[in-house]
Every structure is written in C-alpha cells, then in structure tokens.
C-alpha cells in the first residue's frame, strides 16, 4: 500500500454510500436528514499558494455543509475550481465543484468530472457561465459547447449509466450529488420555475439560487415550484449575501449579470448610518424570511470579501449549530 492511502487525511474515492443516496456527499446527507443546510462561496485566490485557499476557507469551514469554489465567475480568472476543491477535500471539507460551460468543451468537462471525483469531490454545480465580455479578458473565445441543462444530464449519465457521452464505458463512475443554479427574481420571471423543472428533469439533485433580495418575487416562484411538484424532487438552497453599501449594491446591479436588487433595499442602505451593519442585518432578515417559505431546504451565502461575517450572520439568523465535523 502506498503511503498516500495510509494517510488518514488522504482521499478515499469510493467510500460506502448510504442507502437511497447518490453520493457520499455530506451536503446530501444533511439535506436528506432534513437539516437546514448551509453552503457558502469561497473567494478564490489569485495565487498559486495552497495556504491562500485554506485561509479563504477558514471562516466558512466550521459553519457550512459545503464550500462552493467558483469557476471564473463573472468571467474573471482566478485559481480553478477543481484546484481549490482538491485542496479542500484533503482537509475534509465538503466542496461544491462549479463547472461553467463558458471555458471548456465536453471533452474537457467529462475528464475533469472524473478527476474531481477521484480527488474526493462529491458535489458539482452545473452552470452555463457568464459571457466572456463580463470579465477582465473579454477577448477570450467563448466555448459554450454544452449548456447547464445538457451538462446536468451528461453528468447524470456518467454517474448512473457509467458511460461517457460517446458510449464508452467508465469503469468507476463518479458518485456525485448534482447541483444546478436558478435565478428566480430576474426576467423572464414567469418561466423561471419552468426552467427549474427542466433542470430537475435533466437530473439535478439540488439547486443553489442566485441572490434573493426580493422576497415577494421569490415566494411567487416557490409557489409555482410547489405547484409543479418540484419541491419534493429537488433540494433548494436560496442564495443570499450581505451588501457592503448602497454604492456597491448599485455597482453590482449594473455590472454583475443577472442580479436583481429592489430600490427599497438600496434606499435602506443609503439611509443607514453604518451601511455595512445594515447590509448584514438585511441578510439576516432575508434568511429568516426565506426559512419560513415551504420547499426551501437551506441557504447559499455569497459574501464576496465579507466571508468573515458569515458565521455571525448565521448565528443572528438563528441557525446556530454545532461546528460541522469534516
């Protein structure tokens, strides 16, 4: 036996999977146990130092079921999602490997899915990806060989049928908990639940939504989701995050694709003496309101450059919990 496998922290690619589960994911375990799950997004370093990844993960690790590693979100280049996930799995953290269709074709993606699973990744999030024009290298070639929905089905095929899209056999299929995103509060709001239904049909096990700042809109979306019977077929984690100031919120609204922030939220930040505290308070209130909506299984906190606030936000929102082990 190699030294690698004697290390208790080493990767064990094929641990036994509990009955009725599709993966060995801790996030899946928490969701199926009916816990209100928490995931959060890590700010990926512009660095090749693993210590920077551990540093960024530290404020999130204890209070989340899984940490999302973004895949060049907003088309800005950072350390890759697969690299970050590989590092974090070594320390026992649950990770969500984000796959965007913008930068890689089906050949690259299928290979990376196997690589990630071998490194101990148990959750993936299938995304279409923002256009290259949104990022800092707008001259790049956009790939978009797949879209998020066809990607979900592709990974489900790899997992459940044990085949590449070509039909070639995979000797050890990747045991992954498959995630997808949805953006309930942006146009076309009337069709967002229908698109979610397609993702569930394609094979999504869980959903992480984009930022929710508009509770009435989100409630209408969830009502349709429940009416379509999707609430029982997929776990939905609502996306939230603390805004730093009115100025930052306005900037995000006009520069980050797919972000809906109602004017009332921005006004609240504007009037506040300490906008940072107000942003945190708004986030706490949103979590409390979201938790009351039937069909929501957890929250996904995107606290870009405010990761240090996540633990406090959760405590204030009443999601106090024992430190998550592993």
């Amino acid at each position: 036996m190699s030294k690698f496998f004697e290390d208790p922290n080493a990767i064990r690619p094929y641990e036994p999977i509990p009955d009725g589960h599709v993966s060995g994911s801790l996030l899946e375990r928490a969701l199926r146990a009916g816990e209100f799950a928490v995931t959060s997004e890590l700010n990926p370093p512009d660095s090749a130092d693993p210590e920077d990844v551990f540093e960024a993960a530290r404020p999130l690790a204890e209070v989340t079921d899984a940490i999302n590693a973004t895949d060049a979100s907003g088309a800005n280049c950072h350390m890759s999602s697969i690299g970050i996930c590989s590092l974090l799995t070594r320390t026992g953290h649950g990770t969500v490997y984000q796959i965007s269709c913008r930068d890689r074709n089906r050949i690259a993606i299928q290979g990376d899915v196997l690589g990630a699973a071998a490194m101990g990744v148990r959750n993936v999030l299938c995304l279409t990806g923002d256009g290259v024009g949104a990022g800092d290298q707008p001259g790049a070639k956009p790939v978009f060989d797949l879209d998020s929905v066809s990607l979900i089905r592709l990974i489900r095929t790899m997992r459940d049928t044990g085949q590449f899209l070509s039909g070639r056999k995979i000797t050890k299929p990747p045991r992954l908990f498959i995630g997808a995103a949805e953006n309930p509060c942006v146009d076309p709001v009337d069709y967002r639940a229908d698109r979610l239904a397609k993702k569930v049909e394609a094979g999504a096990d869980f959903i992480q939504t984009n930022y929710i700042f508009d509770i009435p809109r989100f409630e209408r979306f969830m009502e349709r989701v429940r009416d379509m019977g999707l609430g029982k077929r997929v776990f939905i984690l609502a996306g939230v995050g603390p805004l730093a100031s009115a100025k930052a919120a306005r900037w995000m609204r006009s520069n980050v694709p797919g972000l809906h922030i109602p004017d009332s939220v921005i006004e609240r930040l504007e009037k506040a003496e300490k906008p940072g505290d107000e942003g945190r308070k708004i986030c706490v209130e949103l979590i409390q309101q979201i938790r009351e909506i039937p069909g929501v299984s957890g929250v996904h906190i995107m606290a870009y450059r405010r990761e240090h606030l996540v633990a406090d936000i959760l405590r204030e929102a009443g999601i106090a919990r024992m430190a998550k082990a592993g």
Partner: protein
Amino acid sequence: MYAFRRFAVRRSRQFEWLYQVLERVLVGLDPILSRIGYGRLERPMAFVERHVKGLMFDCRMCGQCVLSSTGMSCPMNCPKQLRNGPCGGVRPGGFCEVKPEMRCVWVEAWDGASRMKHGDKIRVVLPPVDRTLEGSSAWLRASRERIQAIQGGDDANRTALADAYPEARESAPTSAPLTAEPGKGGAS
C-alpha cells in the same frame, strides 16, 4: 433578419403548421428523394435552407434544426448558443446579457412556444449540438429521421447520446440523429 425572426415568433403557431406540412411533404417524397440520392440533394437543399432560413430566422446552419421545440426562435442566435435557455443573465424587460440591444432569444422562445399547439416540446431537455453536422441540410435530416422513427429502425443504430437524451430523440429527432449520414458509413 431581426425583424423577420421576431415576426416568426409572433406567428409561431402558423410557422409550426408550415413546418409540419413541410416535413410531411419531404417524408412523402422519400421514395423519390432516395432514388435521386440524399447525398446528391445535400448541397442544393443546404443552399436553399441557408438563404430561406437565414432570412427568416437568422439561421446559423447548425444542421440540427429544433425550431419547433423552441417557439420558432432559433437558439443558435443566443450568444451562448444555449439549447436549453434562457440563462440567468437576462436583463430587465427580457434583453440579452451579452447583446443588450437584442431581445433574449430564449425569452422569445418561451413566448413563441406558449402560442404553439405542441409548445410543450420546449420542456424537453435537448442534447448538445453535434458540430460535425454544421452546414448540412437540417430539412433532409428531419425527414430521414422521421422515416426511421416511423419504421421503428431506431434500436439498431441507437447511440449513447440518444440514450442519454431519450425525450429529445422522441420529440425532436434531429437533435439526436440516428440515421446514416449520406456519403458516410453510419450515424455519428
């Protein structure tokens, strides 16, 4: 042309009918087309499609036309070329994330589908495009695939892609083709 393609979406019900008629005619002509040879018809038909569909739908000649599943709004005009849209970046009012002056192709698609008789086909998960079919005739392919489906010859040539997206094979056969390409040995 942008104005024409928006017109097609507004009249999606009529265009759906037109496409059904076209497919039936081509299927009916199959004995003749087979005798002439699909391979020989490929270039002239692709030429016609390039110009007719180019004018009407801003067709990009993907060779796997799925207009009847996308509200008569061509998904290849989406800058991300989504086959299952819209993405999460749609701007307020239904405009494109990448080209803000353009209506989102997929907002149009869902809108067009809502007026169609078989508009529910938009709910089917479509597979990724086979890029080797780019530039070829989608109409002839649609006709060949329909005949094969009618004759029940699907099982013999079944591909992994068709197995991974069985609903798409059922509702939009060109999206997961199984028939042999003219001039080539077997299905892709």
